[in-house]
């Protein structure tokens, strides 16, 4: 297992190197540059040229890339062109929001999706099965931003049960430690701050969970159905094991392998930024920030963020691979 992890981590190096080249070329090939975003309608061609020169954007692309790589090797991601804050600082302030939102969404998706998928399979052809299949189809089809607006209109505007935007009520004086607001509230025993942060996660969490939930329901259902028809399940039943033992030890465990794979991929996808959900809920995460940075042509932020996200994506998938061996001891990672 240890060797497997090390090998996978070593594979990161060429992946990141290739990604950085592609990304660098792609960003520089986008028309325009940060100077126009900075100056807006107020810029003259001379001012734009001066900013390009200052930012080193008039140099050959290889020189620019060389400078970026030199920095990268020292783990320095540079500073944002628009906010002038270090890219790492920007990331650490925004990424926790995305992680909290992702965790919330995945808790909802897994917490509801696996039981629902399992029940649908057990009651195949009955009402619950049809309802969950139809529901998951709607979940996949409905655009996230639309769902977000509808949820807000009902539960925030009309009923007033949940806040409509942000990560925390700004009138709550909350101490920041890690920028994970829920965790910070627990660490500092500011219970109201933690509760409020969780409260703010509910609606965006549900909106973001809609697609993964639908996928998890379908995969769980299909996988459970497949396992239910296996010989070993029949054998287990035949040898007189109770139904709950068969379900726990034999059905669910075997059915979970494909589900775990999809959960890994889905989590990775959500972590890489839920742009729409974050924008609609004015939720401070990396998704909305990356979108802004693209229109600002904030090259250092884009390079830095995407590189970090790539590392995370690989790590999440590594974790999933490792989890296989826990779910199914027959799987050996090498």
């Amino acid at each position, binding site marked *: 297992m240890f060797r497997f992890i090390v090998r996978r981590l070593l594979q990161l190096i060429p992946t990141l190197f290739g990604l950085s080249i592609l990304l660098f070329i792609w960003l520089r090939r986008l028309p325009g540059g940060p100077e126009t975003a900075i100056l807006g309608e107020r810029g003259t061609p001379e001012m734009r040229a001066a900013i390009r020169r200052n930012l080193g954007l008039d140099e050959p692309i290889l020189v620019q890339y060389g400078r970026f790589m030199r920095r990268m090797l020292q783990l320095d991601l540079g500073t944002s062109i628009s906010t002038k804050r270090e890219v790492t600082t920007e990331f650490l302030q925004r990424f926790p929001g995305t992680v909290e939102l992702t965790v919330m969404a995945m808790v909802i998706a897994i917490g509801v999706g696996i039981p629902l998928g399992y029940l649908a399979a057990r009651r195949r052809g009955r009402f619950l099965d049809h309802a969950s299949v139809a529901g998951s189809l709607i979940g996949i089809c409905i655009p996230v931003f639309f769902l977000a607006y509808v949820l807000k209109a009902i539960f925030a505007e009309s009923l007033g049960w949940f806040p409509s935007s942000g990560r925390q009520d700004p*009138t709550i004086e909350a101490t920041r430690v890690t920028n994970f607001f829920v965790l910070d509230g627990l660490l*500092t025993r500011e219970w109201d701050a933690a509760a409020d942060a969780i409260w703010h996660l509910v609606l965006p969490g549900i909106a973001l969970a809609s697609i993964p939930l639908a996928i998890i329901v379908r995969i769980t259902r299909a996988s459970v159905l497949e396992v239910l028809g296996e010989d070993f399940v029949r054998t287990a039943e035949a040898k007189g094991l109770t139904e709950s033992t068969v379900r726990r030890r034999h059905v669910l465990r075997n059915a979970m392998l494909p589900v775990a794979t999809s959960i890994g991929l889905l989590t990775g996808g959500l972590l890489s930024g839920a742009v729409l959900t974050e924008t609609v809920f004015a939720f401070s995460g990396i998704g909305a920030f990356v979108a802004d940075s693209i*229109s600002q042509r904030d090259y250092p932020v884009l390079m830095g963020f995407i590189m970090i996200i790539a590392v995370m994506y690989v790590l999440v998938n590594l974790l999933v691979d490792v989890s296989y061996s826990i779910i199914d001891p027959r799987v050996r990672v090498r």
Partner: protein
Amino acid sequence: MRAPRPKVALAAVAVAALAVAGCAESNRDEGSSESKKDTLVFGVAGDPKVLDPSLASDGESFRVSRQIFETLVSAEEGGTKPVPGLAESWTPDATGTVWTFKLRSGVKFHDGTDFNAEAVCINFDRWYNAKGLMQSPDVTAYWQDVMGGFAKNESPDLPPSLFKSCTVKDATTVDLAFTRVSSKVPSALMLTAFGIHSPKALQQYDASNVTGSATDIKYPSYATEHPTGTGPYKFKSWDVANKTVTLERNDDFSGGPKAKIKTLIYKTISDENARKQALRSGDIQGYDLVGPADVEPLKGEGFNVLTRPAFNVLYLAINQKGNPKLADLKVRQAIAHALNRQALVDSKLPPGAKVALNFLPDTVEGFNGEVTKYDYNPEKAKQLLAEAGASNLTLKFHYPTEVTRPYMPNPKDIFELLSADLKAVGINVQAIPLKWSPDYLNATTSGSAHDLHFLGWTGDYGDAYNFIGTFFDRPKDEWGYNNPALFEKFKKADTTADQAARVALYKELNADIMNFLPGVPISHSPPALVFAKDVTGIKASPLTDEKFETAEFK
């Protein structure tokens, strides 16, 4: 391999959580909880970039720093006319290059130090003597826009400085000397970028120490954590992770009544609909940049919608360089007559919008109502095109996507109406949609491939030069013409010290521009902001300089 028991894992997590709990201390003051009626949360479209307005160039940064800082010259409430700010009065000498400012006395900075003539000179010296990265155009954009260069310009691209020196006459009198007469003085001094900082705080937090390299600029902590002025609100915190900036009432404010609301919070909600929903659900008590279509519904629901007097212009620019036909005045006149601007204003712009007669709104001195007017007259347009031999004209018409500006709430709709008008008189329109930033701005302000495009401007301060001078006082790629007589007249207006004489020149210039017709001014639209039903006391400002100190809950 045996799977680890989930219970063991859970126990490990619980132990770890207990171990870290107590590592972090709450920063709360005991008993700091306050009534929500003491707090106003205002929704804005973007995060500020920096809180030291000297280093800012974006509206959101200025919005926040306006509450923290005061300027020597202020704008009248709800208008653009210069009125006393930190200076009670100002007078030029006979040459028009030295201005004596008489300062308000008894003013204290938020850190308790005194505001006086020396503080003013320390601020001007800080800007004028800027070195290194402080001379970068993206660091001190507004100083460079108004004053040009610095004491010692480090780049050959920088023009000589308009500012020359600051001299303390006595504790409440200061002389500002300039290298020439300029239309920018004193109006431009109302820009928030010229807000006066506490000299003690500037020194304590090393405010001019912009570090890094040109490719990697870093602001000092003053700019993000310690802005210190004399304004009605003091900086309290900037929670980047929660997208909020919190300000607290300055109990020693001397520039007017003490603020009624104790805490003012700016919360970033970039999506317009999300801002509206946040207001309706009570998350925020007001927001800016109300969509034109939302004005009437929100009013109907009882919200306080305030309309700012229009201080902007939307225009159709005609580029004379790329297409030789457009250098013909008759063709430009035909385009102007072809456009049904009234229909556009009535159907696509917010209530209160007007058809523009000048490239200058009528709220600014120098506006001229007696210029050549181009009524909607498609027949005349066709006739002019025929006379110019341009009956079969094809024009590349650029318009921006993914943007709304205060003067241009819905570019695509505006494009469709304008291009339908042009097609109606026989002009073939080749539509070129481009993403606003940076593609559109690049394409329309450089090169000569753009025949027609629309763009606009929101004024910075109340002087006509800030509008018409910005557009027309020199050759620009946006318009592609060279008109030395016009440029010369602009120079004369800019260097005329006498206000009345300068205004007369502006009126002449407006008439000249509408005869020469480099483009067609389309409209002035009033942007709107909205407050909760129980919030009163705020007057809309054309400069987005709303005074929150007068706001209160009913």
